[in-house]
């Protein structure tokens, strides 16, 4: 165990399991005094689980946490704060309706004669914020300030309360370049004061700009901790995505579909979500979409499906202009969309497997033309068998199924509508290896039947395995398209990591 006195926070062999999965597997993490330490990993890598174990939001199953060399065991986030570990989230966890000063001093307002001394509180708030180069009217409601200011107020509160370790969980996700610069100035100043700062983000430029060291997690395991200066971008992406670049799987797509594109999107995009892009999809083709978290993958899917209406460009199907202004319109054009987060966007947990499967088809038919129970049963049984959904019977509430089986039920829901273009967002996320292979096989067989598919995945090997073309996204823009021989994990990683000319920071 490396317990140098420089470490302000050491997490040693942290274990955390959830039913069915091991979220953290003996992860070590060491944070030094006065360093900014980036914690990186794709979705599901265990970043947030690790943070939650450090801040007491989760109780760890095993391992120990040393703060200043002393064994600690925070029972909850409040306890962690008392010990000295403060956290600031992307979603500012302050109260928008209270004044800035009240937010800073909630629960510890200065009092005189039993009453809150508002003037003293406001004065102290101004003093505190002046350390952050912030001159605000602290009596105004927090909601009247921008997210960046709120973020700084949250940091000021966290540092004032805890003062040893500051965890910044994607603090820059909704800030513009100017605001990020302001935030970074403040973070550097805190670093100079000797705080240990853990910085979580998916913007790699920012990692290189501000961090001293980088720790990468993948699938709940520690991949490694490196000095930022010694780690080039390509190696970092490789660490995150988990590709030994030497071992290439060379997938052959003999049947790379030819002919005229069926779906033709031109200059399609939505301001603030995804830059305008051109995209063609042929019948019997799987277009893979690769990119790091936050690069605009899901945004692309949502714009294509009309979940967020495109504000530029045109969409054509077989040469005919179509409007995809809403998911309903897209469904009428025989689109299907399996969203990424099936818990919130996909399944209706309390409804049965059967009801979940017929949901989209019923929605397309309209509620005035109900699908008969016999037909529902037939469809449910058909897809339960075809996709091998493991459920005791079709009336079981879907929330009781395993992740892989829920995913298959959602696929079944869209297959039941017999779509011609199916968009899958992370179809293999959070499901076990066996189900994983089945879903990949299913994608292959759908393609062979002539369906067009757009598949988003962070698993590069998987994209290589089934895509006829791969679109690479970075910073909310389509930056590369790889086809045929060029679809290799190596090429994809290169394209993702390529130095960024558009958004040099």
């Amino acid at each position, binding site marked *: 165990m490396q317990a140098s006195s420089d470490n302000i926070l050491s997490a040693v062999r942290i274990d955390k399991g959830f039913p069915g999965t091991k979220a953290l597997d003996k992860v070590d993490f060491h944070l030094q005094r006065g360093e900014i330490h980036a914690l990186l990993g794709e979705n599901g890598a265990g970043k947030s689980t690790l943070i939650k174990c450090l801040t007491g939001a989760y109780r760890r199953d095993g391992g120990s946490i040393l703060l200043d060399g002393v064994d600690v065991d925070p029972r909850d*986030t*409040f306890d962690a*704060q008392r010990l000295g570990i403060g956290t600031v989230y992307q979603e500012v*966890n*302050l*109260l*928008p*309706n*209270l004044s800035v000063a*009240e*937010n800073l001093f*909630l*629960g510890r*307002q200065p*009092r005189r004669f*039993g*009453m*809150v001394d*508002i003037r003293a509180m406001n004065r102290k708030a101004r003093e505190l914020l002046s350390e952050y180069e912030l001159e605000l009217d602290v*009596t*105004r*409601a927090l*909601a*009247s*300030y*921008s*997210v960046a200011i709120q973020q700084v107020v949250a940091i000021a509160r966290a540092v004032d309360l805890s003062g040893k370790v500051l965890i910044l969980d994607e603090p820059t996700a909704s800030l513009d370049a100017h605001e990020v610069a302001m935030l970074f100035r403040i973070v550097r100043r805190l670093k100079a004061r000797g705080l240990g700062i853990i910085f979580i983000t998916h913007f790699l430029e920012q990692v290189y700009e501000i961090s001293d060291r980088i720790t990468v997690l993948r699938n709940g395991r520690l991949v490694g901790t490196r000095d930022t200066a010694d780690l080039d971008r390509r190696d970092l992406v490789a660490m995150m995505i988990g590709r030994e670049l030497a071992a290439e799987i060379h997938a052959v797509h003999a049947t790379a579909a030819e002919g005229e594109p069926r779906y033709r999107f031109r200059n399609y995009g939505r301001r603030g979500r995804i830059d305008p892009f051109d995209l063609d999809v042929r019948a019997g083709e799987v277009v893979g979409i690769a990119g790091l978290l936050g690069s605009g993958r899901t945004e692309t899917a949502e714009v294509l499906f009309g979940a967020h209406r495109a504000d530029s460009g045109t969409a054509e199907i077989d040469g005919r202009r179509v409007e995809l202004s809403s998911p309903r319109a897209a469904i009428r054009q025989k689109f299907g969309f399996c969203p990424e987060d099936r818990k919130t966007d996909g399944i209706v947990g309390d409804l049965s497997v059967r009801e979940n499967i017929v949901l989209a088809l019923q929605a397309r038919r309209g509620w005035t033309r109900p699908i008969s129970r016999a037909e529902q049963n037939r469809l449910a049984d058909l897809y339960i068998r075809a996709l091998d959904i493991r459920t005791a019977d079709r009336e079981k509430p879907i929330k009781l199924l395993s992740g892989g089986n829920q995913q298959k039920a959602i696929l079944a829901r869209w297959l039941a509508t017999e779509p011609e273009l199916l968009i899958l967002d992370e179809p293999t996320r959070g499901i076990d290896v066996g189900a994983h292979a089945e879903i990949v096989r299913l994608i292959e067989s759908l393609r062979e039947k002539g369906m067009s598919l757009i598949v988003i995945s962070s698993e590069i090997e998987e994209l290589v395995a089934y895509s006829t073309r791969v679109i690479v996204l970075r910073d909310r823009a389509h930056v590369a398209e790889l086809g045929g021989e060029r679809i290799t994990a190596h090429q994809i990683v290169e394209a993702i990591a390529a130095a960024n000319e558009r958004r040099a920071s």
Partner: protein
Amino acid sequence: MKQKYLPLTATILIFVLSYALCAAQYPNILSTRVIGNLLTDNAFLGIAAVGMTFVILSGGIDLSVGSVIAFTGVFLAVVLEHTSMHPLAAFALVLAITTLFGALMGVIIHYLEMPAFIVTLAGMFLARGMAFVLSIDSIPIKHPFYATLKGFYYKLPGGGRITLIGGLMLLVFAIGILIAHRTRFGTNVYALGGGSATAKLMGVPVASTTVKIYALSGLLAGLSGIVFSLYTSAGYSLAAVGVELDAITAVVIGGTLLTGGSGFVAGTLVGIFIQGLIQTYITFDGSLSSWWTKILIGVLLFAFILLQKGIIHLSRDARQRA
């Protein structure tokens, strides 16, 4: 001007404007007698509305208020008729009961994670039922102490009187304002209304705050019941039906956001005055049906809900621009 003062300003403006209109038509409405009566007639409603303000600020609701007032009145009437207990002791006893009753509802709301609407709805039936159990008749209260209390008043120039209960209401409002804006408890109430999950993360003692809020509402409903029994000199289990709704109306017209987290206790007082003024105007007019009170208040309430929506909308836009 700060946005949070906008609804309050609108309320005050409406009050001043409508008062001016009334006064233009009936100059007598400016007399201190009318003002004194306005205080006396609305004393019980005002006191209950202070408690309701805290409940609504925290994002909750208390539907039991009217029933608790009726229960208090019947309890006092029965106790004073059948026992030799001094009214002051009876007051203390009934306040203890109603405070406990409110605290119990708070406990259920917090620990069983039940919506306040349902819990206090049950509380409403329970309190009304208990009043019926005590007596189904309207019992007059003839205790001499009541007459003494009614004899206390402060004479205003021009013949108006600030009665004991009218003054008590103003005192309750003053204390309410202090609690809401100058104590940690008050800030915690606003914090709960801003988002109880976040408030909890920030270290607000959510459980004790919730219990205290409903206990306070129970206490003030009890006090309101005492004032109501002084006002009517009787206890009747069918009295004060729907007072909770009048209190909610006063709170909302007073500029408090029904979803919680924003508003002022002082606004509620103006809300009470607006309701009282409409009532007074209709009395002065004489030809209008008293239902016009309800219609006008309904219109006002609707206008205020629209105003609040508009403000929320504007502030969201402002933040996006920021």
